[in-house]
């Protein structure tokens, strides 16, 4: 029996789009920090389909970009995805629009760090777990600290 029984299902409130929301600066901030152009993304989903850690993410990479396009800052900086990203560059080399998605993830982590949002560090990994984590994953974790 789930302890959530009887609770209302998660809600999906509509996004209220205005030119202020779209142009509030979040998208521009990501563009500046990453050196990328968020509006270039046409949502083909190639980044998500090739991502080796996609199954662990709460929001797929293409949807992260989509939420940036629509100025949905809170959804992104509270997401697990930006920390699960191993910075393996798979998405970056495959993007048909030439967007360095890894750099976008770096930028998003930086914005989250500035907000003081806690994240996952290598010191939190037990030696047993570290032995089973793929190498790119560990490299990614150090990379995240460097941003």
């Amino acid at each position: 029996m789930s302890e959530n029984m009887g609770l209302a299902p998660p809600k999906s409130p509509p996004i209220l789009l205005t030119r202020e929301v779209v142009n509030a600066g979040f998208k521009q901030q990501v563009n500046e920090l990453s050196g990328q152009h968020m509006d270039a993304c046409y949502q083909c989903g190639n980044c998500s389909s090739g991502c080796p850690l996609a199954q662990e993410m709460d929001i797929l990479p293409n949807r992260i970009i989509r939420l940036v396009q629509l100025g949905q800052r809170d959804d992104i900086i509270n997401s697990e995805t930006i920390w699960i990203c191993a910075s393996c560059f798979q998405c970056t080399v495959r993007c048909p629009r030439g967007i360095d998605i890894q750099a976008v993830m770096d930028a998003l982590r930086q914005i989250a760090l500035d907000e003081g949002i806690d994240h996952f560090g290598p010191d939190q990994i037990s030696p047993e777990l570290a032995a089973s984590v793929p190498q790119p994953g560990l490299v990614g974790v150090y990379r995240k600290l460097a941003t």
Partner: protein
Amino acid sequence: MKRIGVFVCHCGINIAETVDVKRVAEEAMQMEGVTYAQDYIYMCSEPGQALVREKIKEENLDAIIIAACSPTLHESTFRAAAEEAGLNPWQCEIANIREQCSWVHTDREKATRKAINIVGTIVQKTRLNESLEPIPVSITKKALVIGGGIAGIQAALDIADSGYKVILVEKESSIGGHMAQLSETFPTLDCSQCILTPKMVAAGKHPNIELLTYSEIEEVSGYVGNFNVRIRRKAPFVDWSKCNGCGLCMEKCPAKVSSVFDRELTTHGAIYVPFPQAVPNKPVIVKDSCIYFKTGKCRLCEKVCEIGAINFEQEDQFIEEEVGAIITATGFETLPVADLAEYGAGDVPDVIDGLAFERLLSASGPTVGEVRRPSDGMVPKEIVFVQCAGSRDPERYKPYCSKICCMYTTKHALLYKHRVHDGQSYIFYIDIRTGGKGYEEFYHNAEEEEGIIYLRGKVAKIFRDGDKTVVWGTDTLTGRNIEIAADLVVLATAVIPKDSTAELVKKLRIHTGPNGFLSEAHPKLRPVESINSGFFIAGAAQGPRDIPETVAQASAAACKVISLFSRDHLEQDPAIAWVDEDLCGGCRICISVCPYDAREYDEEKGIVIVNEALCEGCGSCVAACACGATQQRNLSDSQIKSMVTASLRGE
């Protein structure tokens, strides 16, 4: 006794996989009258045709049967080959063992027996075939083009430039069509008027083009090469030969009429020209709106016209013309906003359609190119574009894609951004379709550089809230619903055929498809011809299409007409109906069943004759004739009886 040769085609594996073609040839050899039979892998190939020609001579054949695909594909190919080898073309018959046998069966034994049976049936027909000669038909080398939009203008110019006369008929007082309403055109952003008006002027001045605007087709009779057309010239109540287009009458007219050209965003007087660059630049009086016609008083226009061009007594005139070919290019309409209940049914003032937005963007439009919304003239800062408004919705509206909306909506959003720099535009879409040269690049540029937000999902509801127009939609890419309080909403309404098309096609006796657009003879290989000889089609009357495609198609239709006119005379297939005058009792049942008006009662002889130029050889009258007086050449009763007998004997 005729010497008949049978040639059995494998069609690669299309026939040979299901039908034992060698056995068909062997069995054919046993049939009465057959003196030669042979199979070959591709009979329509040059070596295959050479085999046919060679054997006609070597075997001294009087007739041949090609057992292969449908006669619609290669009958003419093999008849030409037969003629080259000295046979009369009507001594060549096709036995269809592909579409009617190998393609529809799987059991090899049964399919082979059926193929043999089909060949046997055609052998019976061939034994009694007569040699025929094509019937020559004269051609009037003058074309009629119906519709003066860009399709009609282009087709008329191409035909006229090749030296033939053209009558260009337009229902409105000026040519130009929808293209004259557009601001700029995708993907190059050429000013629509700038590229269109030179063509309008050229059509108006061309010595080979007779421009009949404010005119409609009343009646069409005749057949390819020889049509008789009756045209109504509606009374403009202005003597166009006197009028110098000064425009004083229009300034003084006190009546107010919603401008169709400006999508009802402005008004003009009861006497008007639709737009300043009109060709011809002559006004007409709308009788229903004219104060004089309604009340018997006013005649202000008459008073101000110094040259006395106003004529309230004018009546519609009728003219008769003879033409050899007819191009129908009557264009399109868009689904009325009023039909879209969930988008406000036309009652929300700031919900307009794409053509109205074109007028708002146009430098010659009601706002002189400034984007201002209809309700209060405010410059909208949040603007929502809704694609597929009535398209791709088989349950409630139109099942098809209107094709031009993805591109023109992107253009609208881009032009809006160029005029309102601090404005934000949103486009709701289902899919973005940008098939065309430079189209995808245009879309990417708009998305990337102009900050247009594309939202993938259909809009559910649009309603007014204070001075805002609220749009409820969804974005399937985030999985979230979207709400926008917009200042202006532009609907990309479905492209539909013009109301008047249905009536016109009845007069022309050409066909439309399930959605009311004109039908082509073949969707791939005969895209600009109607199935009825002498009728050609061009532009959006055939289906939604953009300007480049319309112009290409109009030139193609013109080319078909020019090719027709380049011949001295036409040749009509002689395998049509004929009447035994001694047997015909004059009951006229044939007249009632003939779909081509090819049967005519001859008062003097008391019989019904066949108009050989009109008869398409469908056989309806032959079947209906009670006394056997009407027969089809090379499909006589005795031929059909022997074919049926052969067919039944086979199984």
